[in-house]
């Protein structure tokens, strides 16, 4: 346990000792600010239209402001998270510090979970910054905090999936650029996997068949977020995310182990 936290602490320190943490958090909050402004602007206009009796009948801050905002934030994660995960194993392998970790009296799983917790902490810090924007809404309106909390829990789990996949990809290579690019592609594939699922709504107008459709829909990691965004904690989605993370970490452990055998 203490070994795991030692690794996690080292990872966090490494993020903040290098420019990575500042670049990632800084750029993410700038983008988030732009989205925030754009959506707030749109929301306010809707509100004015409603006041004049032309717009929608009810205007919920959670539904019309926070949800689209967080969904947009998820798109940004597609670009930001590979930057966090690409170094996890690739850098250790390149600089030879992998030899230190693997010859220390700690297990591969402790290293793995430590690294995962480190990356997750940085990601949580990143989400924490966005809370500052959302808190602004409380000053001028009355959003509900419970759906907000579930949405952030969903975001955390969703990001955790990306981090576990990113670590897996990072364990394949010594080259951080390769790891980053591959991670991005894998993320994007997981993102759009349901686009080819539906027959009528399918992007390419093709049908994948009823069974495949269901499987593809289930694999899409964005669909599982929807309920969290609405304020529902459905164990179905919770289990999907947790097992996705576990599976990703398991594969990473196998990948690191096989690297040892191959040399």
């Amino acid at each position, binding site marked *: 346990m203490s070994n795991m936290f*030692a690794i996690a602490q080292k990872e966090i320190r*490494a993020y903040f*000792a290098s420019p990575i943490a500042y670049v990632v958090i800084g750029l993410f909050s700038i983008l988030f600010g732009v989205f925030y402004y754009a959506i707030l602007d749109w929301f306010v206009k809707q509100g004015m239209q409603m006041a004049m009796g032309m717009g929608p009948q009810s205007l919920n801050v959670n539904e019309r402001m926070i949800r689209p905002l967080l969904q947009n934030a998820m798109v940004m994660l597609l670009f930001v998270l590979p930057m966090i995960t690409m170094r996890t194993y690739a850098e250790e392998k390149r*600089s*030879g*510090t992998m030899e230190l970790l693997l010859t220390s*009296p700690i297990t591969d799983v402790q290293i793995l979970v430590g690294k995962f917790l480190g990356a997750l902490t940085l990601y949580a810090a990143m989400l924490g910054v966005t809370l500052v924007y959302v808190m602004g809404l409380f000053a001028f309106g009355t959003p509900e905090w419970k759906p907000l909390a579930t949405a952030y829990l969903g975001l955390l789990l969703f990001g955790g999936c990306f981090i576990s996949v990113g670590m897996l990809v990072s364990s394949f290579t010594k080259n951080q650029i390769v790891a980053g690019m591959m991670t991005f592609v894998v993320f994007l594939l997981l993102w759009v996997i349901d686009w080819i699922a539906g027959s009528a709504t399918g992007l390419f107008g093709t049908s994948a068949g009823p069974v495949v459709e269901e499987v593809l829909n289930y694999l899409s990691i964005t669909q599982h977020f929807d309920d969290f965004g609405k304020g529902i904690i459905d164990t179905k989605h919770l289990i999907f995310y947790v097992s996705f993370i576990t599976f990703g970490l398991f594969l990473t452990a196998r990948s690191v182990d096989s690297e*040892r055998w191959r*040399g």
Partner: protein
Amino acid sequence: MIEVQHLTKRYGRITAVDDVTFRVERGEILGFLGPNGAGKTTTMRVITGYMPPTQGKVIVAGFDVFDQPVDAKRRTGYLPETPPLYPDMTVREYLTFVAKIKGVHSGDRLSRVAQVMKKTAIGDMADRHCGKLSKGYRQRVGLAQAILHNPDVLVLDEPTAGLDPKQIIETRQLIKELAGNHTIVLSTHILPEVAQTCQRVVIITKGKVVAVDTPENLTHRLSGAETMYVQLDAADVDATSVLQAVPGVTRVGLSDRHGTAVGYEVESSRDQDIRRELAAAVVARGWGLLELRPLRMSLEEIFLQVTTEEGKPEQPETTGQTEEAAQ
């Protein structure tokens, strides 16, 4: 302390280490000698538990490295070829982190780090970032990292590579000091280093052990005859026959010629000291005796002899040959 039994490691079809067996006793310094690519690093990586062997096993301090990795690793310190440093950490932060993952108790950590920094003389660099250190300091921080948890076994992969001569001497001194409480395996391709620091040498080439012995024995055994170098101030005469006539001399050969000085190599059987007779014979002729010294086979020559014998089917195994020569 370390037992390597029939260790074989293959990378795909390439066999890096082929059926290597040796043991290292407690408190001993073992030199691991071989040309580049001989399998030194691979063997060390298996000993330290970085990679599993394809066949055979390694026992460190009573623990099988493969079956009880955590116990074995707790008793092993390892300095890889490139010191495993985190460039963004300061030396002190780095060592504290290593102390944590090596299982040094939290109460002892600070004192242990300070102690090790003093031992390796890196105290004045404690707050520098590891990435900004010179090669010599990196190497020393690497060594500090290896001895931090006071391991029984120290595995050092080319500990003096890339250091300047003064640092090399200091590092060797440090290694010798450590030998008392630690069992040390160090690899190198610098031969004098082995002669100076190691009690025993394992010569490995193309993944196979070709010789295991003390450096002294190796130098003695492999040279069956004693050779003297004699330099005379007598350019115009041929001294070969005179030298040949000295009792005990088996062979005389012309070695070099500088102006009037002529050098000869005189071979004799090993158990006989013929220096006195040689000198007497030369002086009796009225020639000037400029130099008279024994030529001992250097480790370099032994190394070349041992490592190039591979592939000559006629010759017996080197270890066998050295034993024959000693008789």
